[in-house]
């Protein structure tokens, strides 16, 4: 038994190691100041796919990312961990895409790849934190989705049973294939790069060559070093320019500001009903709550 799994990943600024100059004066993220990393949740999605491949050797994992040419780095990291095939979706016309335009472009790329069993995504990216792209892609592809998956309980060619995290516990959900899953960082601790794959793929290039999609190279081990990782532009995925990039993005950022949270003074509240009610009234009055 084997599966064809598409994993969607994103290169993001490392927002966990914020320094003083993380934001520019205009309120946008200063990408130059933050190291670009593999979005943490996406590593869990990739690991979930790799575990399936560990068990079913003929499974093929296709990793797609959309971003500038530098995002090829996270695709290479996917190859180092065991992905079979990677595609970089890159075009100036994709720039400034919101979640709607992003999910459209990724949907077009998935359609180009063709039939698949599973699409895996991270729960959300640490830059935008929207958690919208995965669900939107499922809608556009017209398939089922299971979000917030911590663990796959059971998988067959027909259906999947997954454990999804919900507030205060979890629920077990079943869905027929094909299906899209978004993963949390709870169960699938990502594996490291393999030293052998690292040395094999470190010089892989991204090429715009419009070759027809071809998996045959995978069977020929001797050729594996010459595999070219694919670069697809807007024409390659047959996307409508009006639905891409800034033009295809209804979300407009009105204003962004850098907020520094600083504690000033503290106020002790007695642990009784009267004092707590007074505090709540106070918070309502200054619109902190309510």
């Amino acid at each position: 038994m084997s599966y064809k799994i598409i994993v969607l990943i994103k290169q993001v600024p490392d927002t966990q190691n914020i320094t003083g100059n993380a934001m520019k004066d205009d309120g946008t993220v200063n990408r130059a100041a933050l190291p670009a990393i593999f979005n943490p949740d996406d590593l869990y999605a990739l690991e979930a796919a790799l575990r399936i491949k560990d068990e079913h050797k003929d499974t093929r994992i296709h990793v797609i990312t959309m971003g500038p040419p530098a995002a090829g780095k996270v695709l290479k990291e996917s190859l180092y961990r065991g992905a079979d095939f990677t595609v970089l979706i890159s075009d100036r016309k994709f720039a400034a895409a919101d979640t709607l335009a992003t999910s459209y472009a990724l949907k077009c790329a998935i359609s180009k790849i063709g039939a698949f069993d599973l699409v895996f995504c991270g729960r959300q990216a640490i830059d935008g934190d929207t958690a919208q792209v995965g669900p939107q892609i499922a809608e556009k592809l017209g398939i089922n989705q299971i979000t917030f998956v911590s663990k796959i309980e059971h998988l067959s060619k027909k259906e999947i049973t997954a454990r999804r995290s919900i507030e205060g516990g979890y629920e077990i959900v079943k869905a027929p294939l094909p299906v899209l899953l978004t993963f949390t960082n709870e169960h699938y601790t990502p594996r490291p790069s393999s030293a052998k794959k690292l040395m094999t793929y470190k010089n892989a290039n991204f090429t715009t060559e419009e070759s027809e999609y071809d998996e045959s190279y995978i069977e020929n081990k001797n050729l594996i070093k010459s595999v070219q990782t694919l670069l697809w532009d807007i024409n390659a995925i047959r996307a409508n320019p009006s639905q891409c990039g800034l033009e295809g993005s209804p979300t407009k950022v009105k204003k962004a500001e850098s907020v520094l949270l600083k504690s000033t003074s503290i106020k002790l509240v007695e642990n009784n009903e009267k004092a707590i009610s007074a505090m709540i009234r106070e918070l309502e009055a200054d619109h902190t709550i309510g």
Partner: protein
Amino acid sequence: MDNFYKDNDDIQFQFKHLDLNRVIELKENNFSDRDLFPYAPKDVSDAKDSYEKVLEMMGELSGDFIAPRSKDVDEEGAHFENGEVRYAKGTQEAMEMLAKADVMGFTLPRKYGGLNLPVIVYVIAIELVSRADASLMNLFGLQDIADTINKFASEELKEKYLPRFSSGEVTGSMALTEPDAGSDLQNVALKATLKEDGKWYLNGVKRFITNGCAQVSVVLARSEENLKGGRGLSLFVYERDRHMKIRRIENKLGIHGSPTCELQFTNAPCELIGERKRGLSKYTMSLMNGARAAIAAQALGIAEAAYREAKKYARERVQFGKPIMDMIQVYDMLCQMQIAIEAGRTLLYETAKIVDMKEGLEKQEEAHPEDKALRDEAKRYSKYASLLTPIAKAYNTEMGNQVCYLAIQIHGGTGFMREFNVERHFRDIRITNIYEGTTQLQIVAAIGGIMSGTAFDLLKEYDSLDYSYRQDLYQKIQKARIWLEKSIQQVKTAENSSMQEYHSRRLTEMCTDIIQAYLMLKDAAHSERKKHTAEVFIEGMMPRMEASMNFILHGGESLIKNHVAILNDQN
């Protein structure tokens, strides 16, 4: 995201300036693997780039995955239940990750699933892992066992065992020590008997065996019943079955994650490695030399971890209105630690590179026995390797102990508490100058090369480089070198023949100092900061050297004369 390679400027500096061209050419043998394995390098620069990428990956794995688990591993330790060993949870998880990273056949040839990486890259990787968790090194750093099988066993045994080592399916142990054969391995009594069925069987007890629960062990045993001493010993490979019982595991001061086992062999079937009677003299010596470089790297990694804790603490801890780091007594300690670590690192990497040269040349020599120049070169590097390996082990393990001691001192009372990592590093480092031969035995191994002139041959090679950027420091080294020569001359001409043994530690330390001074001055060619470290190192070395020389030249033999009376504590 902690990366123990990328956050360590000194390792990167050393790696960048290591001239590995020759090592790579020897290791890759005309790059003949390039058409057979997709991960084989195509030329020298491709190989060096691969080495660095593997180290980056090991740095990430060590910093991100292994280090966060080390405290729990220390607290939980390895378990012994129903006659079987179970690793601590963190140890088990780390082993799975190392297997997935394809790094359990680090130095093995590619045809057995290995990475074919040189020793120099391996010792750096061990240093990174040891900084994260010293006890894990005793599993990751035991690859010399597979390497010994690769070097000396038959093709059949290699094919049987090596691919399983590479995939991480099995781990190894080296079963050498017995209750009555510790430092003195010639005393090994465990019996190997060749029975009528043409197979060998083991009977006896081994003690203090690191990872003795391993699936595959190499066992030193007496195969020649009537031959006493080392000549009666052979080396065997044994695969776990019901004929070996783990009797207990030890309750130790440190490296709790690494199980130390006592093993009882009862008619346990095994296979001979190489030839009979060469078990100790050739195979175990080779195995131990590899392991000694690995332990030196382990000690260096622990020292690095302890030093970083101390520096961080000294920067944050405010007393008398300022960070304690700003006080001379404290930054003196920190600088001594930092310089000692850098001196240990440059020495260890030089040693590993020379070991790589030796191994590469010896392999070439096998293929071209008629080439005299090659033979001479191999011999020269073999002598250097025999000199430097015990020196690097002795220095780094003693230095590591000193660094961990000072790291606690800088923490003050806090460092004595279990909550702080320095307490663990202090316990973990303590075994490094004991196992794989105590420092005293390293000195026994090194002194020959110092007395015979091998050390001076090596120094002559260093003399061929240009040190004009700090001629003053070079002159100082020359002065110290004359002191060493004088001291050696004094010992050689002394009437009392025990003088060499009596002064061997002093002489070895003097020689270590000079080699390190050369290496640090050599490093200074590429960096202003390294010029400062070399200066401070050499400034501290001169009075040390002079005192040792004076003791050797003018000191009496009072200790040797009086030791019986002193130890007989009756006044």
